[in-house]
C-alpha cells in the first residue's frame, strides 16, 4: 500500500532515508537534536492549532470592545489571551459581513498565521489553491470547497506576500444568542478562519 508521502518522484522510504542522513549530519555538527524535533512536533500537534484562533473568534463575537481591538491590531489583541509568536508577529484580522467575504492565500510560498491556526493543511501549500484562488475564487469556493458565495457579496482575497499574516473573522451564526464563549469556540472551524468554509451551526 502507498505511504502518505510517496510521490511520483520518490517513495516515502527514499525520502525518509535522505532526511535521516541529513539529520544525522546536523546532529553531529551541533545544529540539531532529536529532542528539539520532538518538542517542535509536540507544540504544533498538541498546543498551537486552530483551537486557539477559535477562542479568539468566540471572544470577538461576545466582547465588542475586544473585537474592536482585534480588528485594529490583531497581534496585540491576541497577546491579551496569551496567543502569539512565530509567523504571527504582525497579524491582521479581516471581518466577514453580510456584504463581504474574505479568504487568505500565499501565492508565492505558504505564509499562514501559525499562532492562531497552527501549521497549514497540505492543500493550502499545494499549487492548485495558490494558483486559482486569486483568479477564480468563486469557482474554487463553490466547486472545490462546496461553499458558494452569493454574487452580491464581495469576495476579498488576501495574498500574504509580506510578513503580515491575515486571517478571517467569520460571522457569528444565527441562533447562538444563548451560547457562551466556550460553546461558540466549538463552532469555529479552521476553514472558516481561512475563508474557505462555514462555521458549524449548533
Amino acid at each position, binding site marked *: 500500500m502507498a*505511504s502518505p508521502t510517496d510521490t*511520483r518522484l520518490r517513495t516515502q*522510504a*527514499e*525520502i525518509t*532515508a*535522505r*532526511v*535521516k*542522513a*541529513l*539529520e*544525522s*549530519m*546536523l*546532529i553531529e*555538527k*551541533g*545544529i*540539531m*537534536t*532529536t*529532542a*528539539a*524535533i*520532538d*518538542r*517542535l*512536533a509536540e507544540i504544533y*500537534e498538541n498546543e498551537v492549532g486552530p483551537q486557539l484562533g477559535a477562542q479568539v473568534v468566540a471572544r470577538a463575537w461576545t466582547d465588542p470592545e475586544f473585537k474592536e481591538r482585534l480588528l485594529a491590531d490583531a497581534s496585540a489583541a491576541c497577546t491579551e489571551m496569551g496567543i502569539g*509568536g*512565530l509567523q*504571527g*508577529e*504582525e497579524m491582521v484580522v479581516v471581518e466577514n459581513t453580510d456584504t463581504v467575504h474574505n479568504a487568505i492565500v500565499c*501565492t*508565492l*510560498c505558504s505564509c499562514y498565521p501559525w499562532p492562531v491556526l497552527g*501549521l497549514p*493543511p*497540505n*492543500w493550502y501549500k*499545494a*499549487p*492548485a489553491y*495558490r*494558483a486559482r484562488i*486569486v*483568479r477564480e*475564487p468563486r469557482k474554487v469556493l463553490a466547486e*472545490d470547497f462546496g461553499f458558494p458565495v452569493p*454574487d452580491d457579496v*464581495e*469576495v*476579498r482575497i488576501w*495574498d500574504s*506576500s*509580506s*510578513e*503580515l499574516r491575515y486571517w478571517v473573522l467569520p460571522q457569528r451564526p444565527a441562533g447562538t444568542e444563548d451560547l457562551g464563549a466556550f460553546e461558540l469556540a466549538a463552532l469555529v472551524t479552521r476553514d472558516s478562519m481561512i475563508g474557505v468554509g462555514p462555521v458549524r451551526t449548533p
Partner: protein
Amino acid sequence: MNGVFDLGGTDGMGKVQTVENEPVFRAEWEKAAFAMFSNCFRAGFFGVDAFRHSIEKMDAAEYLLSNYYEHWVHVVEDRGAQKGVIDPAELEKRTQFFLENPDAPLPEREDPDLLAFVNAVVKSGAPANRPTDKVARFKVGDRVTILADSPHGHTRRARYIRGRTGEITAAHGGAIYPDSAGNDGPEAPEHLYTVRFTAEELWGPETAEPNNIVYFDVWEPYLTLAS
C-alpha cells in the same frame, strides 16, 4: 526571478485536494524537516527571505511534484553546502546507508540551549518590521502602479500584479526588504503597503469573476504613482 513557485493566476493546476482530518505531520520525516527550519535558522543558514529564495531555485518540475516539506529539506542541503556544513557526497553516502539500514539509530546529543531556543522562538517569533528614517513616498488612498519589469533573484513582486494599478489601503511603516535580504544583502528596510486590486484590473473584464478584490502587500520600490 520568474519561476513556477509564482503561482498566482496559473491555469492547469487541477482541483484543490482537501483531506479530511489530515494529521499535522503525515510521516516522521516531516517532523524532522519542519524542525530543520528553526534549528538551521539559529545556526545562521538563512533568514526567512533567503530560505524562500533557495526553494524558488529548486528544479521547476521537482518543485511541483515533491512534498511540501521536501522543499524545506532542499533548503537545508543547499544552504548547508554553501556554508560548508553539509558535504553533498557524505549526504549521498549516508542516504544509501539509511536506505539499507532504515532502523539504524541517529547520533545522540543533548542541547538544553537549543530546546530553550525552540520554546522561546515559538512564543516570541522573529518580527520583520523595522523602523526607518525614510520618508514614505505614498499614502493611503494613492493609486499606484506596480513596476512591470522582471528582476532576477528574489522578489515578492508576483507576476500577476506587475504592471497593474490599484489603491493603497494601508501603510505599515518599514519592513525588511525581501529583494535585498532574500538575495543575501542587508535588511535594507523599505516602507510596506497593502494595495487593493480589482479582479477586472488583474485578469481583464472578459475573464474576471464578478465582484472580486485581491489585496497584495508591496514594498515602496515596487511602486510608481499611477498617472
